[in-house]
C-alpha cells in the first residue's frame, strides 16, 4: 500500500484489522512525511522513537480500540508526560510534564500513536498561528495565482497544516473561540468542538476555562466521530466534565437527515460578506434541503455582541489562569540583577516569557477585573453571554435541530497580512465561531468548496447541547453532498 500517510483513520483502522498494514508501517510513512515538511512548521517537537515504540506496542496489542495503531499529532497545548509541552510559549521553555493529560491518556489507552507535538498560537491566543514562539505554521494550500505563504489559521494551525498535508492521520485541537473550526476551514479539513463538558480539560494548558474544549481535527466527518468518541467522557479530575455516557458517534452516521430542521440565522449575513461566502452558504443550504431537511429562517439577536463579550470574558479568565507563570514552579525564570526581589522576578520573567498578544490579553483581563471596572465590563459581559445562550435555547425550543453558517468570513490570508492591523481586526476572524463557545454548544466545520483563488472554504453546523451524534450526522450528509476532494499541491 502506497501513500499510507494519506489514509483516513477509518481506512487505516480497517486495513490494520485485516492485517493489510502494520502500525509500524503507517507510523514510518508519517515520520518520513514529517521529515520532508519542515517548511510547514507544523511539528515543533518530533517524537519518532516514541512513535515507533508505541506503534510496535499497538501491533502487538490485540485488544486495542478503533485508534489502535493510528498515528496522530498532538497540539502543544496538551501535557504529554516526559515530552515538551510549551503551549508555544517562551515561558514554558524546557517544561516536560510529569503527567499525561486525560485526552492523551485516553487516546493512548485506545492504542493511538503520538508522532509529536504540533504548532499553535501562544497559549491558543490567535487566529493565524503567528504568535507562536516556534515561528509560523504554514498552510499547505497556496493561491493559484501567486506563491505567497498563507496562514493555516489558529490557534490550532499546526494541527490543521499537519492533517491537510497528510503528515498524520488526525490531530487533536482545542477551541476557545474558534481555534479548531477556523483553521479546519482554512485548510479544507473537518474539525469539531464538542459541547462544553464533553471532553476533559485536565492536563490541557488553560486559556479561558469556561470556554476551552478539545476536539479532533480530521480528514473527514467519520474520522472526527471515531476520534471524538475516544477523547470524550467523564473525568473526575475536571469538575466541569459531564457525567454522561458517550454515545457511539460513528454509529450515528446514517446520512439520513430527512425531517430535520436546519436554522439559517439572519444575523450571520454580515455587511460586506464576500459573494463567494454567501454563495457557499446558499449552496450548503440547498444541499441540506435536497437531502430532505426543512430549512427555517431564524434569528439570534445578540450575535453582534458575542465577540465583544468574548473579548472581556476570555482575557479575564486568561489573566487568572496565566498568573501561575511566575518563574517559580515550572518553565523559565528571567535572569535577575543584583538586588532584584521577588516582584522584579515576576515582572521580568513574564515580560520575557510572554509574547505581545498574550501580554495584551493578560493586561486587558487584569483591567476588566480590576476594582471599579468589574461590574461595568466583566459582569456585563457575563449577562450578555447569558442572553447569547438564551438566543440559541429559543431556536432549539422552536424545533431547530442544527444551525448552518459560514465557518469563517474569508479564506486563508497571507502570513504577515495583519501585522499592522489593530488587534480587533484579527479578532473578527472568529465572528461566526465564537458564539458556540459562549453558549457551550457543539460546532463543526466541514470543507464545502474552493474560492476563486483555489483556496478551501468551510461551512459550520451548530448543534444542540450533547447532540454531537446528530450534529455529526448532519455534517456527514453535507459532506456527502459537497464531495470535497481537492488537495493542496505539494510545494514543501
Amino acid at each position, binding site marked *: 500500500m502506497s501513500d499510507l500517510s494519506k489514509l483516513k483513520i477509518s481506512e487505516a483502522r480497517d486495513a490494520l484489522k485485516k492485517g493489510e498494514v502494520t502500525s509500524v508501517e503507517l507510523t514510518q510513512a508519517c515520520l518520513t512525511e514529517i521529515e520532508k515538511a519542515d517548511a510547514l512548521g507544523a511539528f515543533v517537537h518530533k517524537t519518532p522513537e516514541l512513535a515507533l515504540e508505541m506503534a510496535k506496542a499497538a501491533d502487538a496489542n490485540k485488544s486495542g480500540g478503533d485508534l489502535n495503531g493510528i498515528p496522530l499529532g498532538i497540539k502543544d497545548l496538551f501535557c504529554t508526560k516526559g515530552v515538551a509541552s510549551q503551549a508555544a510559549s517562551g515561558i514554558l521553555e*524546557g*517544561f*516536560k*510534564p*510529569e*503527567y499525561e493529560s486525560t485526552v492523551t491518556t485516553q487516546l493512548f489507552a485506545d492504542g493511538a500513536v503520538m508522532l509529536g507535538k504540533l504548532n499553535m498560537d501562544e497559549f491558543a491566543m490567535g487566529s493565524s498561528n503567528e504568535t507562536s514562539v516556534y515561528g509560523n505554521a504554514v498552510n499547505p494550500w497556496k493561491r493559484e495565482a501567486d506563491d505567497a505563504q498563507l496562514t493555516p489559521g489558529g490557534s490550532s494551525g499546526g494541527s490543521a497544516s499537519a492533517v491537510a498535508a497528510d503528515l498524520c492521520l488526525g490531530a487533536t485541537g482545542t477551541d476557545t473561540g474558534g481555534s479548531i473550526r477556523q483553521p479546519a476551514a482554512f485548510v479544507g479539513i473537518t474539525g469539531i468542538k464538542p459541547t*462544553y463538558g464533553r471532553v476533559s480539560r485536565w492536563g490541557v494548558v488553560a486559556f479561558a476555562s*469556561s470556554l476551552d474544549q478539545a476536539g479532533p481535527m480530521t480528514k473527514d466527518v467519520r474520522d472526527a466521530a471515531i476520534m471524538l468518541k475516544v477523547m470524550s467522557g467523564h473525568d*473526575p479530575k475536571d*469538575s*466541569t466534565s459531564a*457525567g454522561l455516557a458517550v454515545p457511539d458517534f460513528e454509529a450515528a452516521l446514517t446520512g439520513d437527515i430527512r425531517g430535520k430542521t436546519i436554522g439559517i440565522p439572519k444575523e450571520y449575513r454580515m455587511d460586506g460578506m464576500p459573494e463567494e461566502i454567501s454563495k457557499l452558504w446558499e449552496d450548503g443550504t440547498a444541499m441540506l434541503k435536497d437531502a430532505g431537511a426543512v430549512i427555517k429562517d431564524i434569528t439570534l439577536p*445578540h450575535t*453582534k*455582541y458575542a465577540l*465583544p*463579550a468574548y*473579548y*472581556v470574558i476570555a482575557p479575564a479568565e486568561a*489573566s487568572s489562569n496565566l498568573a501561575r507563570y*511566575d518563574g*517559580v*514552579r*515550572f*518553565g523559565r*525564570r528571567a535572569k*535577575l540583577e543584583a538586588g532584584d*526581589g*521577588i*516582584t*522584579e*522576578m515576576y*515582572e*521580568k520573567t*513574564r*515580560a520575557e516569557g510572554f509574547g505581545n498578544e498574550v*501580554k*495584551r490579553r*493578560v*493586561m486587558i483581563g*487584569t*483591567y*476588566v477585573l*480590576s476594582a471599579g471596572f468589574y461590574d461595568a*465590563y466583566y*459582569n*456585563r*459581559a*457575563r*449577562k*450578555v*453571554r*447569558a*442572553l447569547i*445562550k438564551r438566543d440559541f435555547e429559543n431556536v432549539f425550543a422552536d424545533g431547530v435541530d442544527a444551525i448552518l453558517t459560514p465557518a469563517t468570513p474569508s479564506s486563508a490570508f497571507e502570513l504577515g497580512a495583519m501585522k499592522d492591523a*489593530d488587534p*480587533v481586526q484579527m*479578532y473578527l476572524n472568529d465572528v461566526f465561531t465564537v458564539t458556540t463557545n*459562549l453558549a457551550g454548544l457543539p460546532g463543526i466545520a466541514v470543507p464545502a468548496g474552493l474560492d476563486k483563488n483555489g483556496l478551501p472554504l468551510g461551512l459550520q453546523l451548530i448543534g444542540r*447541547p450533547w447532540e454531537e451524534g446528530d450534529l455529526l450526522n448532519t455534517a456527514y450528509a453535507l459532506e456527502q453532498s459537497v464531495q470535497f476532494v481537492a488537495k493542496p499541491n505539494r510545494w514543501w
Partner: protein
Amino acid sequence: MSIDIETARRVAKLARIAVPEAELPELANEFSAILGFIEQLNEVDVDGIEPMTSVTPQRLKRRDDVVNDGGQQDAVLKNAPDAREGFFAVPKVVE
C-alpha cells in the same frame, strides 16, 4: 473609553509584566482600541439578567474530602527553575 499612560502603567504593574516606559503609549493605544470594541456591550439591555456562572446547567461535583494523591515531591519540583533541598527557591522575600 481612552486609556491614558498612567492607567496602562498601573495595569502592567497589576499584571506583573514589566513594560518599558517607551512602550506605554502604544500599549495605551491598543487598550483603547480593544476597550472601544468592548463598549458595544453597553448597547445591550441586561436588566434583570443574571450573569452566567456555568454554561451547562450543572452543580459542580463534590468529591470526598480525603487524601487521594501525594508523596510526589520529586515530580513536583522536577520542572522548577530553581529547587533546593526539596523546596522551590526564590529571591529573598522578607528583609
